[in-house]
């Protein structure tokens, strides 16, 4: 399990888990689970397009993440947030289907991009993942106060001079960065589960923001590590374990606090 061919998997998954744990805290606070689902899922066509054009996959993913941020925020001017998100998802996936139909050799790649193939990660991917992850974490921490203020009390945030639209745009950009970090290595499903599961479970344990953020990272790491170990032992896909572990920790938290955490509103 700790052999040399697994080293890359452990390193990269750890970096992704830390990034997703931190960003996930704000996904939960801002009620943005749908956007956290759609940006990664809507970025996979970028990878398909890149393979079609013969350019680096990561470039395509970054381009489509950025397109997602622009598309969602543009549609949000006309629509409620979730309707805008759903519409962008439809458009992105339609393009994805088109690109996929043009290349036949991509079928296995789709499975990896959606559900993740942690094993056999190339060493060349470690550096970009580390850089993108570090940027995502740095931006999130820089925006920590305005993001939190805007999420918990929009009026107070407005008074403090942080425009709502700008904060939402910045947050979507952070989500996109996290997507670009994680998508090539763990897949769209796993980065979504990691952003939502651990952070929502952490809320049941404490009502102090900074502690909840830390716990979110700890739980995210625990989820990823046990998922990799279980996947190694059973040969079942990692994405399955990450998704189910997220569900289990959320259910456990809910049962402890029946009716949900009253303090975090």
């Amino acid at each position: 399990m700790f052999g040399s061919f697994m080293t890359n998997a452990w390193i990269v998954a750890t970096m992704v888990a830390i990034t997703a744990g931190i960003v996930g805290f704000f996904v939960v606070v801002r009620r943005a689970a749908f956007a956290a689902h759609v940006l990664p899922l809507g970025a996979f066509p970028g990878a398909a397009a890149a393979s079609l054009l013969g350019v680096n996959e990561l470039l395509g993913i970054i381009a489509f993440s950025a397109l997602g941020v622009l598309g969602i925020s543009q549609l949000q001017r006309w629509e409620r947030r979730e309707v805008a998100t759903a519409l962008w998802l439809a458009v992105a996936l339609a393009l994805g289907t088109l690109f996929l139909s043009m290349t036949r050799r991509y079928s296995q790649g789709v499975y990896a991009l959606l559900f993740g193939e942690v094993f056999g990660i190339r060493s060349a991917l470690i550096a970009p993942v580390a850089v993108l992850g570090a940027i995502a974490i740095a931006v999130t921490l820089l925006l920590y106060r305005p993001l939190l203020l805007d999420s918990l009390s929009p009026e107070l945030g407005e008074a403090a001079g942080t425009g709502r639209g700008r904060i939402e745009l910045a947050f979507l950009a952070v989500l996109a960065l996290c997507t670009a970090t994680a998508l090539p290595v763990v897949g769209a499903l796993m980065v979504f589960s990691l952003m939502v599961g651990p952070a929502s479970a952490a809320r049941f344990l404490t009502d102090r923001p900074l502690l909840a953020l830390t716990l979110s990272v700890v739980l995210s790491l625990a989820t990823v590590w046990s998922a990799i170990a279980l996947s190694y032992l059973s040969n079942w896909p990692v994405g399955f374990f990450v998704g189910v572990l997220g569900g289990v920790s959320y259910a456990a938290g809910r049962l402890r606090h029946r009716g949900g955490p009253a303090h975090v509103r």
Partner: protein
Amino acid sequence: MGVLGLIFAPGFLSNGPVHTALLVGGGAAVVGAVVGVFTVMRGQSFAGHALADVSSAGGSASFLLGLNPLVGFLGMAALAAGVMEWADVRDARERDLLTGVMLGAGLGLTALFLYFASVTGSASGAAITVLFGSMFTIPASIVPAALALAGVALAVIAAIYRPLLLSAVSEDLAQAQGTRVRLIGLAHGWALALAVSLSAMTVGAILSTALLIGPAAAGLRLADRPGRSLALAVLIGLLATWGGILLAYDSYDWTPGHGWPVSFFIVVLVFIAYLLAALLARVRARGVSLRAVHPSGCGQD
């Protein structure tokens, strides 16, 4: 005949798989549009999308077990809708998270079933079929069951139309009027499950969101009265679906050897309709505000 020949590539009107696609796709579009209007009004777009994705776990399981795909898709969607309503979460944030966590677990199951399918070698390309759908490969034997289910979903919505509309506009008001809000929520949840599993099978689990949300959002842009929004949404959904099937069929002639995917055309048509609706609504709103600034005729000052 010359013009018709340009629009309909030879064989379109006499092709068996095309008939099946037109029937099942049309049913999915109508049900999706009707249920979608209420889903958008109730602010449950995310739940709608999540149900579609979760239903794909059932779809991949039936792929694996050799069951009728309708059973798998529908069973899983109904189960998930039941869990969501049973958990009875009022707080918007909690609802968002519950939906998200359930979606993660459901997609995890999909990953597992698809993995089993690839290991047993029962189906290569199962991932693509389950997630993206394949309208021209729907077996004709499924048509009666699919249309019957579409009918059931429409009947459910028709039966609870007034209280559903009331609780979509204001839950508190509905409660004050003696509506059993939870029961209505559950009924809507199951209608939603029916709608998304139907469209999950036709345009694929991932793209069924387009049929659910797109026409409904456009219809709601275009009209203020719910009845009119419903009618427009149905019209847009049907035209986009049938137009998409036609274009996909014709596309075999544009690029010899392979056609373009149906789902792509349907979503593009739906999205164009939405953009036009949004544009029209903006123009109209500007007209109204101009009239408000320059009240013509009945001058008071």
